[in-house]
C-alpha cells in the first residue's frame, strides 16, 4: 500500500496541518511502503518554503488556477497526478477546503471516501476507519476491503508549519517540482470578492476561551461574557444554538460545524455539553458552570460548579478587577 498526502500552502491561514496528515499515513504504512506528499500551490514555491513533513517523496505541484477558496479548482491537478502515480490511499486534512477537495476528488475516482476521520489502521489487507457518527455522539468503525480510499483526517492540533529560511524536512526525502495543467476557467462565476473578517478571527489561537450556550439567554449575556473574556485575556465563543440565534457572530461558533479550538483553559457558561459542540473543544483544562447538576457538560469538564452563570461570571469579573490583573484591567 502506498499513500498520497495532499495539502496546500498558499497562505498560512489556509495551510492544513500537512505534517499531521502525513503522520497518519506513516502510522498506516508497513516497511517498504511509501508516502508521497503533494503540496499544491497556485504559484511556483521556493524549495525552502516547502512544508516540513515526514515522507518519502515531496512534490511541489504548481497548479495554475488553483484557489483554496474554490477547492474544485484543484481537483483536476490532483486527479491528473494520481492517475500517473497511483496511490492506494489518498489523505487530506480535515479543514473545510481539504474536505471539499477530498469529496470531489473521490467522486471523480468513484471510490470510498470518509471525512472527519479520527483514526486509521490496518487489519490484514483491510483498512479500518474510525470516524464520528450520530452527530459526534458515537464513533463508527468501518472496514474497507479495496483501494483506492480517500480520507480527510483530523490532525488534532498538529501545527501548520510556516515556511522560511532554515526550514528542512525532518529526514531527507526526494523532492521535485511539477507544473499541472491550468484549471479550466470558472465561467459560471460572473463576479467574486473576498470579505475578510474584521481583524481576522483570534478565537482559534486564544489561550483562554469563554464559551456561552443557550443557558446564557441572549445577546446581552454574551456582552457580559465578552467583557469577561477580555478581562481574562481571552476570546469568546458560542455553541451552535446560541450562534444561530444570532447572539454572537457565527464566525465564533465552536463545534463539529464550526471552529475547533485548543485553548489552555476553556470556561463554559450555560453550555449543555452536546456532543457536536464538544467535538470542537480540545482544551487543556475545561471548567463548566451550569445550574443543572445533571448537565452532560460536567462529564466533559475537569472542574465544574453548579451555579447561575451570570452570578459566577459577575463574581469572577469582580475578583479580577479587585486583583487589578489581566489585560483588561484598569
Amino acid at each position, binding site marked *: 500500500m502506498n499513500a498520497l498526502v495532499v495539502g496546500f500552502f498558499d497562505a498560512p491561514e*489556509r495551510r492544513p496541518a500537512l505534517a499531521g496528515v502525513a503522520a497518519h499515513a506513516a502510522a498506516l504504512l508497513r516497511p517498504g511502503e511509501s508516502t508521497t506528499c503533494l503540496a499544491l500551490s497556485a504559484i511556483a514555491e521556493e524549495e525552502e518554503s516547502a512544508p516540513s513533513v515526514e515522507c518519502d517523496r515531496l512534490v511541489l505541484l504548481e497548479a495554475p488556477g488553483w484557489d483554496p*477558496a*474554490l477547492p*474544485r479548482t484543484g481537483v483536476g491537478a490532483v486527479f491528473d497526478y494520481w492517475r500517473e502515480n497511483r496511490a492506494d490511499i489518498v489523505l487530506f486534512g480535515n479543514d*473545510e*477546503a481539504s*474536505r*471539499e477537495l477530498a*469529496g*470531489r476528488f*473521490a*467522486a471523480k475516482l*468513484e471510490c*470510498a471516501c*470518509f*471525512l472527519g476521520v479520527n483514526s486509521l489502521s490496518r487489519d490484514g489487507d483491510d483498512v479500518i476507519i474510525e470516524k464520528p*457518527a*450520530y*452527530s459526534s*455522539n*458515537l464513533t*463508527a*468503525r*468501518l*472496514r*474497507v*476491503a*479495496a483501494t483506492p480510499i480517500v480520507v480527510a483526517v483530523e490532525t488534532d492540533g498538529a501545527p501548520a508549519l510556516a515556511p522560511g529560511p532554515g526550514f528542512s524536512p525532518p529526514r531527507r526525502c526526494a523532492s521535485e517540482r511539477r507544473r499541472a495543467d491550468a484549471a479550466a476557467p470558472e*465561467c459560471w*462565476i*460572473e*463576479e*467574486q470578492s*473576498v*470579505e*475578510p*473578517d474584521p481583524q*481576522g*478571527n483570534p478565537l482559534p489561537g486564544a489561550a483562554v476561551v469563554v464559551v456561552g450556550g443557550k443557558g446564557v439567554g441572549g445577546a446581552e449575556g454574551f456582552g457580559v461574557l465578552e467583557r469577561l473574556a477580555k478581562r481574562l*485575556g481571552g476570546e469568546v465563543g458560542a455553541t451552535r444554538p446560541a450562534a*444561530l440565534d444570532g447572539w454572537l457572530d457565527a*464566525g465564533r461558533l465552536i463545534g*463539529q*460545524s*464550526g471552529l475547533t479550538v485548543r485553548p489552555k483553559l476553556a470556561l463554559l457558561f450555560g453550555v449543555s455539553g452536546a456532543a457536536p459542540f464538544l467535538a470542537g473543544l480540545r482544551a487543556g483544562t475545561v*471548567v463548566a458552570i451550569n445550574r443543572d447538576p445533571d448537565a452532560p457538560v460536567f*462529564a466533559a469538564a*475537569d*472542574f465544574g*460548579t*453548579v*451555579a447561575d452563570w451570570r*452570578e*459566577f461570571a*459577575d*463574581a*469572577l469579573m469582580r*475578583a*479580577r478587577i479587585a486583583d487589578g490583573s*489581566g489585560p483588561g484591567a484598569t
Partner: protein
Amino acid sequence: MNILVCCKVVRDYDQVLREDWDGWGTSGRDVSYARRMVNPFDEAALETALRIRDAVAASGGAASLTAVTVADSDALLGDLFAVGFDSVERLAPGSDAAFEPWGIAAALHRHVERKGGFDLVLCGKQAGPGDSGLTGLYLAERLGVPCLANVVDAGYDGGLVVRRRIDGGHLRLRVRPPLVLVIGNARYSYLRLPTLREKMAAKKKRVDVFPVDIAEPAFPPIRLEGFARQPSRRACVMVGGESAVEQVRAMAARLEALGGAP
C-alpha cells in the same frame, strides 16, 4: 428558476439518553422517544431556498420549489407544503441508507435527471447518523455542475448571489446556474413558521413517493462493524461554595494548583 432542496428527517440526538449511547454497540438502541426533526443544516437549506424564491418573486420572476428526501417515512414532510414548497418528493429506498452517501447521491442524481434537471440544488452540509458530509459534493460531481460548499447565505437581485464561509472571512460570488449549494452554518438557519391558513391548505397536498434502489455497487462494499462511545478523558471535580464569590475563589484555587489560573 427551478430549485430542488435535498433534506432529511432525523432524530434529535440531543434527546437521546446517555445510557442508550453507552449501550449502542453494534445493534443500536430504540431511540424512537427522541423527537423527529429536520436535520439542522437541511432546515437552513430549505429556508435559504424559500428566501431565494421570495427574492426572485420580488424581482418579477418566478421560482418553483421542490423538496426531496430519501426516507421510509413521510414524517414532517407535509409541513414543507405549508411553508411554501410546491412539491415534496420522497425516494423510498426500502433498505437502510444511513451510511450510503454514494448510493443516496446516485438515487438523487437519477431523480434529478428524471425530472429534467434543476437550476439550483441545495443540500445541507452534513446529517446524522452517518455524518458523512459527502452527499452534496458527490451529487454535484455526478451532475457535472459546479458546487459551492459551506454556503452561509444566498439571494437573488436579478442574478444569483452566494456567500460562502472561507478561512478568515467570506467569499461573495455572483454565479450562473446550474449549480449545487451545500449549506453550512447559514444566516437563516430556522425554517419559517406557517400560518394556520397555510397549514390548512397544505393538508390537501400529498407527498409523491418514488421507490428507489440505493444499492449501487460503484466500489466494493464498506462494512460497518459497529459503534463506540468515546469515553471522556476528564473526571470532573465539582467545586462547591455557599455563594458565587466562594465558588469563584474555590475554582481559582483549583486552577492555581494546576498552574492554569486565568
